[in-house]
């Protein structure tokens, strides 16, 4: 198992070609999966015996919540690589993942609130998961703002990487402290994700949506990385060749 293909990925020109070749395919696969998920989730899946039709928001809320955490972990790993090995491409990854992650965290929060209203009558419930999502959004905004505020690009990326890694350590602590805080007074209403019992016909569309949106955000991050990568290596020879090639 030689790892050369992986090491080559960290070289800017190679990554540019790799990204340009694979992102369109990833986006097509993502579109197909999302369409399947939508059809399966909205039309084929039967209504939930408890929550009726409103549980269909799960097909957007759960993938968004899962993505917000997965993208943050990816960003923190990129941050570690930036801090330890100073790989330039990891800086592009860190900067590219932050806005995508922030957008999906905001989506997870919004859909969580839209789901909360019909099921508990309140838009905002200080449930452990929703509160952790809110903290995650603040962390994302902190990373983006910190990176935006510093003028020198390399130092800005390292500062953002530092905050991303420190935030990563903080996420489980916040999750635990909110769980502990929530358990002090037993909330009368049922818990937020009343875990509607999902049988197969409901579950597969959910996987489809989750995988589809994950592929989409991966492709989106790679497109942003391409732009950031090209911007940082403007004077390199390979940039002229690649950008002036007719294919683009």
């Amino acid at each position, binding site marked *: 198992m030689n790892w050369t293909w992986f090491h080559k990925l960290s070289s800017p020109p190679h990554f540019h070609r790799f990204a340009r070749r694979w992102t369109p395919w990833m986006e097509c696969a993502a579109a197909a999966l999302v369409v399947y998920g939508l059809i399966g989730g909205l039309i084929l899946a039967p209504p939930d015996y408890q929550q009726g039709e409103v549980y269909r928001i799960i097909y957007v809320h759960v993938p968004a919540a899962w993505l917000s955490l997965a993208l943050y972990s990816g960003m923190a790993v990129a941050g570690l690589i930036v801090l330890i090995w100073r790989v330039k491409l990891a800086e592009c990854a860190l900067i590219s993942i932050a806005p995508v992650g922030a957008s999906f965290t905001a989506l997870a929060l919004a859909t969580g609130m839209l789901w909360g209203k019909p099921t508990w009558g309140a838009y905002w419930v200080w449930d452990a998961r929703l509160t952790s999502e809110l903290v995650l959004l603040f962390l994302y*905004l902190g990373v983006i703002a*910190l990176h935006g*505020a510093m003028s020198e690009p390399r130092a800005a990326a*390292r500062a953002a990487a530092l905050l991303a890694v*420190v935030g990563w*350590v*903080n996420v489980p*602590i916040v999750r635990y402290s909110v769980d*502990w805080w929530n358990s*002090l007074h037993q909330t009368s209403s049922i818990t937020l994700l009343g875990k509607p019992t999902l049988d197969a016909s409901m579950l597969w569309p959910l996987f489809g949506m989750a995988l589809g949106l994950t592929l989409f955000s991966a492709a989106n991050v790679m497109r942003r990385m391409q732009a950031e990568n090209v911007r940082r290596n403007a004077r390199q020879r390979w940039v002229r060749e690649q950008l002036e090639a007719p294919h683009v």
Partner: protein
Amino acid sequence: MTGGALAILRREWMLTRHRGANWAQPLVFFAVVVTAFVLGAEPEAPWLAEAAPAVVWVALLLALIVGSERAFRDDARSGFLQQLVRSPAPLPLLMFGKLVAQWLFTALPLVLVAPLAMVALQMQGEAVGALWAALWVGSPALSMVTGLGAALTASLPRAGLLLPLCVLPLSLPIVIFGSGAARAAEHGLSAAGPLYLLASVSLLCICGIPFACAAAAKLQPT
């Protein structure tokens, strides 16, 4: 080895002494937040005592953010931070010295003044003791988190929005366990559980934050 940290401590002590009444700024800020809160509520409000732990912790957090704003900025501007980065002594230890100095000269006065605020917020009996213990145990973590925020934003002309945005997510567990200890004591439960959790968060900050501050210090443009 620890000479460096002690030297930094002495330097900070002399600096705060020469800066005159500037060290009192967080104290005044703390008093203003508490007074405004009490006057905001109707006199003899029954719920004031219950809300008191949260008010004290929020006032402490805001006062620390205000107090730590220029902790690293003057050093970064005067080039002292760059000298620290290049000194043979281990940088995390120097940063630890600086953070301890910041706790001593900013957070400690607030913790000593806090019982007055609790009396002002009409807290009674058990809860006062539990909240004060929580303040003692939690304030190192809070002051270190605000110190890290200050270190990260040291090279910027003004931290403005950034300092609270970076500090808020990291300080939430401290505020939750801190006021949780007082609330537990109010209900007559033993406040030991949340205090232990708060102590563990504090120890995590004491061990980890100096290294993060060292990495942040290295970021400053030379």
